[in-house]
């Protein structure tokens, strides 16, 4: 009986978590516009989605920003992690706290403060400011996923490379990077996912002329949700789910290896 109750409890928790998403996915295949009545299976909304210029444009913005932000944040974060790792204990602890704070800060605070920064410096908000914002919030996550790999490294690996005639740059590319690569890739994927996922910070750091998917959905939702939005959300859910699964699998593998 106890066992049954435990399972039942878990089942209803998962039910409430996933039913809204399931409903959304089912509705995206509904032939009619209704949100209450099933009018047969159809891919109309998916077809409309891909012919909607505004949405396709937003998709382009979302993906290019996610890719570029992930690339820049990965480079920046990896180099930062190597630098922080080489620091002495106390400055290292200080730097790690400083990189952890932005991650715990509410997105709205990050968003508003970045907006104020751009207003203050009179930088016109748009694609570039949104990209900069994404790089900013992605970087700490890259640092966080690279750091453990650096700590696992034999502390003499770098010295051994220099000892064998490698310049510091050669040692970076041929010894340090290959050894921490799993962490770098996890960091990059995490950055990409976070960037793809973000609404709040994007909303405050872009102009109405440059929209990514989340800000577009938000502005259209105010006029009433079109069924194409269901199709779009369903696709985003699937894409993020796949990415998350890959990231989790990678980190599980890393845990098994140790």
């Amino acid at each position, binding site marked *: 009986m106890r066992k049954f109750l435990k399972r039942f409890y878990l089942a209803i928790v998962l039910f409430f978590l996933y039913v809204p998403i399931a409903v959304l996915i089912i509705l995206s295949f509904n032939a009619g516009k209704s949100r209450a009545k099933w009018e047969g299976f159809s891919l109309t909304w998916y077809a409309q989605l891909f012919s909607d210029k505004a949405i396709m444009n937003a998709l382009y913005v979302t993906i290019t920003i996610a890719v570029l932000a992930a690339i820049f944040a990965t480079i920046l974060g990896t180099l930062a992690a190597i630098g922080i790792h080489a620091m002495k204990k106390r400055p290292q602890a200080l730097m790690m706290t400083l990189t952890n704070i932005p991650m715990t800060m509410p997105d709205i605070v990050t968003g508003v403060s970045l907006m104020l920064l751009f207003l203050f410096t009179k930088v016109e908000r748009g694609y570039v400011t949104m990209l900069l914002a994404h790089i900013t919030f992605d970087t700490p996550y890259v640092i966080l996923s690279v750091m453990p790999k650096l700590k696992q490294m*034999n502390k*003499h690996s770098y*010295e051994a490379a220099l*000892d*064998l*005639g490698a310049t510091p740059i*050669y040692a970076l590319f041929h010894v340090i990077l290959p*050894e921490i690569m799993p962490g770098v890739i996890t960091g990059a994927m995490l950055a990409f996912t976070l960037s793809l996922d973000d609404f709040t910070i994007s909303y405050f750091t872009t102009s109405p002329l440059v929209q990514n998917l989340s800000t577009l959905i938000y502005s259209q939702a105010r006029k009433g949700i079109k069924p194409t939005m269901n199709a779009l959300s369903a696709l985003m859910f699937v894409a993020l789910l796949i990415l998350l699964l890959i990231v989790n699998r990678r980190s599980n593998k890393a845990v098994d290896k140790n």
Partner: protein
Amino acid sequence: MSEEPRMIHLENISKEYNGVTVLSDINLYIRKKEFVTLLGPSGCGKTTTLRIIGGFEYPSTGRVVFDGKDITTLPPYKRRVNTVFQKYALFPHLNVQDNIAFGLKIKKMSRGEISRRVDKMLDLVNLNGYGKRSVESLSGGQQQRIAIARALVNEPEVLLLDEPLGALDLKLRKEMQLELKSMQQRLGITFLYVTHDQEEALTMSDTIVVMNAGHILQIGTPKKIYDEPKSAFVARFIGESNIIRGTMVRDELVHFSDMDFACVDSGFGENVPVDVVIRPEDLMIVGEDIGQLTGVVKSVLFKGVHYEMMIDTGDFTWKVHSTTMQPAGSRVGLSVVPFNIHIMRPTKEDSAK
């Protein structure tokens, strides 16, 4: 050995970390083809000395001279020395072959030449056919050999070894000691070896440098260091010893334990306080009536090759090693030949207790 030219010369090297002195005024030279061991307890500065020669740390004051040239601030990748690190520091993302070839690839050597040299090295360290294996699949001893091969393949003029056998078990360590020594003699490379294991130092070295608390206490051949330690610290650190306070009556006559003993040392002056060192194996157990000293056996320990007995002669308890056992409580005589009595000037910090 002594006619070989000096490869490395450390001149007045000092090193401080945040105001703490870890090396003070180190002066040392290493001759070509010599096997030199830096020996001392942990924290004595031996590894720091090695790292200064490797280029991983710069001295606070002083100069490092290599083959006549000042290399004090030269980065490690420009020095003609290679290092075998304590925990091997092999590159886990490369296989055995690529680990060994690492230095050669940097030198832009041709593929054929690289593989020829790598094979030669694998042969030297008895790991033929291991080239394609991942380094993590190897045992500690095998990884150690790869680390040595990776350093030696670059044909360094000097090989620096930082406690390379520390992680191996006793039997393997003894085997590797002999192997390293014969490798060094065959290749004619200068070895600078760091260890805290006095037996290892005695077995392998041409010259031992005993260090403590950032100072060099004594430099000499293993035999000289063992037979004629310059201070109580060296006597205690290298092998076991009985150290007792005494007085040098005149040349070749020393007084301790209320007795005069003939010895072979001279030049200390008359009636000066000295430390007397007698190795446990140099004290002979004889009949009570013919011994120079008499005492009671306090305890007996079986040590394998010999018995270790503590013998109390009233004013001092002597540690004695002998292959024949005297039961605890029995009265015995002790005697020592003049040659085996070693006299030292007492040092301030480490005078006999």
